[in-house]
C-alpha cells in the first residue's frame, strides 16, 4: 500500500506490458488440433508456433516480469448521490417481525441433537423390553425401513440381534437426531419466552403429528408396528434433553444486536420494546433510499 501510494504520487502506475506471446501459444495449440483434421504440415507449424510462443512467454516473465509505466493524472471524482433522503411516515410496529438479537452457535444444535438422540434410546429400549422382551426390537424396526427384504419380517426376527440392523438404525437415528438438533438450535431463540414448553412439548407433538401422517410413505413396516404412545414418550425425552443442552450454551449476538442503541447494548437500559429498534432502524434506512 505504501509502495503503491508513492508511485501514485510520482504520477505513474506499473502494469504488465502488452505481449502477443499468449496469442501465439494459443494459435500454435489450435493449429496442432487443426493438423489432426487437415494435414500434418499444419500440425507441425502449430507445434513450432507453440514452442516459439512458450519461449517468448517465458522471456516475458523470467528473469524479471516486464512492466510498462502508465502515467496517472489525479483528479477527484465527486461521489455523490443524485437522490435526497426523505423522511418517512411512521409505520406501525405491529407489522414488523422481531428478529432475534441473540442466537446460538451452530455447535449448540449439534451437541443438543447428540444428547437428545442418546436420551431417546432409553424409552425406545424400554418399549422393546416391556413389549417384546428384547432391547433390539426398536432398533431393528427402525432399520427395517431401509432393507427391502425385511418388510415381512416377524416379531421374533426383529427381536433378535442383527449387526447390520444395528448399524442401519444408528445411521438413521444419528442423522435424524443431528438434523432435528440443528433445527432446535435455530428455532429456540425465536421463541424465547418458554423454551422448555417449546422444546419439550410443542415440538415433539408437532413432529409426531407430521410423522403420523407421513410414515406410511416413508416406512410402511414401521407404520404398521409403531406404538404411538411410546413414540411420543421418546420424542418428549429427546425434546427435553436436546432443548436443555441447547439452552445451556451461551448465546452469540447477531448483527441486529449491534444496531441497538448503546444504552441497551451496555445493559444500562433494557426492555422488550428495545427489540423493535433494529427492525425499525433498518426499515428507516430502506425507505430513505
Amino acid at each position, binding site marked *: 500500500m505504501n509502495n503503491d501510494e508513492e508511485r501514485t504520487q510520482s504520477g505513474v502506475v506499473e502494469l*504488465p506490458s502488452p*505481449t*502477443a506471446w499468449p*496469442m501465439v501459444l494459443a494459435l500454435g*495449440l489450435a493449429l496442432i*488440433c487443426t493438423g489432426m483434421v487437415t494435414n500434418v504440415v499444419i500440425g507441425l507449424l502449430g507445434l513450432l508456433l507453440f514452442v516459439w510462443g512458450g519461449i517468448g512467454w517465458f522471456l516475458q516473465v523470467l528473469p524479471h516480469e516486464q512492466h510498462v509505466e502508465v502515467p496517472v493524472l489525479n483528479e477527484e471524482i465527486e461521489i455523490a448521490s443524485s437522490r435526497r433522503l426523505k423522511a418517512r411516515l411512521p409505520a406501525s410496529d405491529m407489522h414488523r417481525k422481531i428478529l432475534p438479537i441473540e442466537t446460538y452457535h451452530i455447535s449448540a444444535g449439534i451437541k443438543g441433537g447428540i444428547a437428545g438422540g442418546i436420551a431417546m434410546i432409553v424409552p425406545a429400549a424400554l418399549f422393546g423390553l416391556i413389549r417384546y422382551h428384547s432391547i433390539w426390537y426398536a432398533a431393528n424396526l427402525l432399520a427395517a425401513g431401509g432393507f427391502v427384504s425385511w418388510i415381512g419380517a416377524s416379531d421374533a426376527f426383529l427381536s433378535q440381534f442383527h449387526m447390520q440392523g444395528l448399524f442401519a438404525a444408528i445411521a438413521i437415528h444419528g442423522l435424524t437426531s443431528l438434523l432435528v438438533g440443528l433445527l432446535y438450535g435455530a428455532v429456540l431463540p425465536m421463541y424465547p419466552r418458554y423454551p422448555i414448553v417449546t422444546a419439550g412439548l410443542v415440538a415433539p407433538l408437532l413432529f409426531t403429528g407430521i410423522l403420523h401422517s407421513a410414515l406410511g410413505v416413508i416406512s410402511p413396516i414401521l407404520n404398521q408396528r409403531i406404538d404411538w404412545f411410546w413414540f411420543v414418550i421418546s420424542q418428549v425425552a429427546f425434546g427435553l434433553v436436546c432443548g436443555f443442552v441447547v439452552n445451556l450454551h451461551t448465546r452469540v449476538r447477531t448483527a441486529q444486536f*449491534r444496531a441497538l442503541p448503546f444504552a441497551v447494548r451496555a445493559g444500562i437500559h433494557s426492555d422488550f420494546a428495545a427489540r423493535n429498534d433494529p427492525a425499525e432502524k433498518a426499515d428507516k434506512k430502506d425507505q*430513505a433510499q
Partner: protein
Amino acid sequence: MATQTPVPAVLDQTTSTACRPMWLEVLHDWVTTVDHKKIGLMYIGYALLFLVVAGFEALLIRIQLAIPNNTFVSPQVFNRLFTMHGSTMIFFVAMPVLFGFGNYLIPLMIGARDMAFPRLNAFSFWVSAFGGLLLYFSYFGGSGLYGAGSAPDVGWWAYAPLTAKAFSPGHSTDYWTLAILLSGVGTIGTALNIVTTVICMRCPGMKLSRMPLLVWIYLVMSLMAFVTISPLTAAQIMLMLDRYLGSHLFDTQAGGSAVLWMHFFWIFGHPEVYILILPAFAFANEIIPVFSRKAIFGYPAMVAATVGIGFVSLSVWAHHMFTVGMGAGANTFFVFSSMTIAVPTGIKIFNWLATIWGGKIRFTTSMMFAIGFLFQFLIAGLTGIMLAVAPFDWQLGNSYFVVAHFHYVIVGGILFMLFSAFYYWYPKMTGRMLSEKLGKWHFWLFLIGFHLTFDIMHIPGILGMPRRIYTYEADRGWMIWNLLVSSGAMIQTVGVLLFVYNLVRSYFKGAVAGADPWDGWTLEWSTTSPPPSYNFAVIPSVGSRRPLWDLKHPEDPDNNYE
C-alpha cells in the same frame, strides 16, 4: 471500520492527441493486450458475433419446421444446423460472454488493477476464440482438406455410437471434439484466473463477507468449471482415441459402453447449466438492488444458496438419462437430488422478490429485463421440476417439451439477464448510455417474441413431437403450433437486430454517461467510464458491502448494520 479513501479519477492524456492511430496500431493494441477490460470486451464481442451466427442457424431451423413436409433445407443440412446451433450457443456464445463480463467486472468490483494472471487471461481468450474458428472451419473442410466440407451433425451431446467411425466417417465429428477441447482449455484458464484473483487480489477491507455477490457467484461458478470441464475433456480425449487409434471405449459391440459417454457428457452437461445460469443470478444480484434502491435482501443466504447450488448441481446429472433404463435405485436418487436443487434456487427467488418489495423501483430497460428474467426463470424452474419426475420424463423426454424447457432457462433466464447486464454496464464500458427508447422497443419485441416461441413450444411437445425431427406429416396437428413458434422467432430476431443497432449507434451518439449514471454502490462506479487501464489511481479500501453508499451517506454508513 476501514478508512474510506476518496477515489481520484484519472485523465488519460494520450487520447487528446490530435491524429487518430492507424488501424494497424489499434489491431496491434488489441492483439497484444493483457488488460482484463480489453480481454473482457473481446470475449463479449466475439460472443456477440457467434450469437448472430447461431441465431441465424436457429432461424433456418425454425423456417424448416414452420410447415409440414418442408424441404427448405436438406435433412443433412438440418442435422448440421441443430448441432452447430447448440454447440455454438453453449461453448462459443454463453461461456465467452459470461467470462467476458466476469473478466471486465471482477477486478473493478474488488478494487484490483488487473486479474491475477494477465497473460494467462489473454491466452485463455485466444484459445477459445481459435476453437470457435476451428468449429466453423468444418464447413469448409469437414472431411479433411481433400474432401467436400461438412460440419458436425451428431447433436451437441454427440451420443455414442453415432460418433463412432463407422457412423460418422470423415472428420466432421473430430472438428467438434477438437473445438470443444480447445474451448475447455480456455475455460479452465479463465476459471483458474478468476478463483486466484478473487482469493488474492481484493482491496483492503474487502473481506469475503463484504464481496459483491457477483464476485461470490463467479468464484463458485469458476470452481464448478474445474470439476466439470475435466470429465468433458477426458471424454473428448477418449472419443479421439476411439476415432484415431481404434480403441473401443464407447463401442458397445466390442465391449465398450455407450452409456459411459452419456455419464461423462452429462456430469459436465448438467453443472454446465448452472455454470451458465449462475452469472445470470450474479447480474440480478447487482442490478435488482440498485434499481429497487434497497440493499440486497439476505446476503448470507444468497451466498449459502450459491454454494449449495454448486454442490447439489454436481449430483443431478443422470436426470438426463431417465429414459436409458438405469434402474429404480438410480432413478429415485436422481429424482430427489434434482428436486433438492429447487430449494437454494427458491431461496434466491424469494430474496430477489424481498429486495424489490417496498423498494423505490426505477423501470429502466435494465430493470425490465431483470423482472422478465425473474418470472421466466421461475416458470423454467417449474417445468424443470416436472421433468425431474422420472415417470413424467418417460412420457416427455426427447420431445419438444424438453426443448421448450431448456430454452426457457437459457433464453428466458440467461439471455434476458444478459441483456439487462448490457444495459446496466454498457455505460461503464464505453462511457455512453444505451438509448432507453430503442431499449424499450427491444424489450417489448423480444418479450413478445420469446413468449410466442417458447410458451407455445411446450404444446407440440405434449402432443408428441420429438426433438431434432427434420419434418413432420400434415395430419399430426402440429402445424399451427410450429407456425406460431417460428413467427415468434422472427419477432425475436427483429428485437436482437434493434439491440445490435443500439449497441453500435450509442457508441458514437449515445448520451455521455459519467462515472456513476445509476447511482450505484459497488466500486466499479467510483472510477471513470470507461475506466483507465490501471482502474484505480489509488487502490480503494472499503468498510461495507456497499462502499459507494458509505461515501454518499457518511451519516448512515452500511457497516452499522452488517
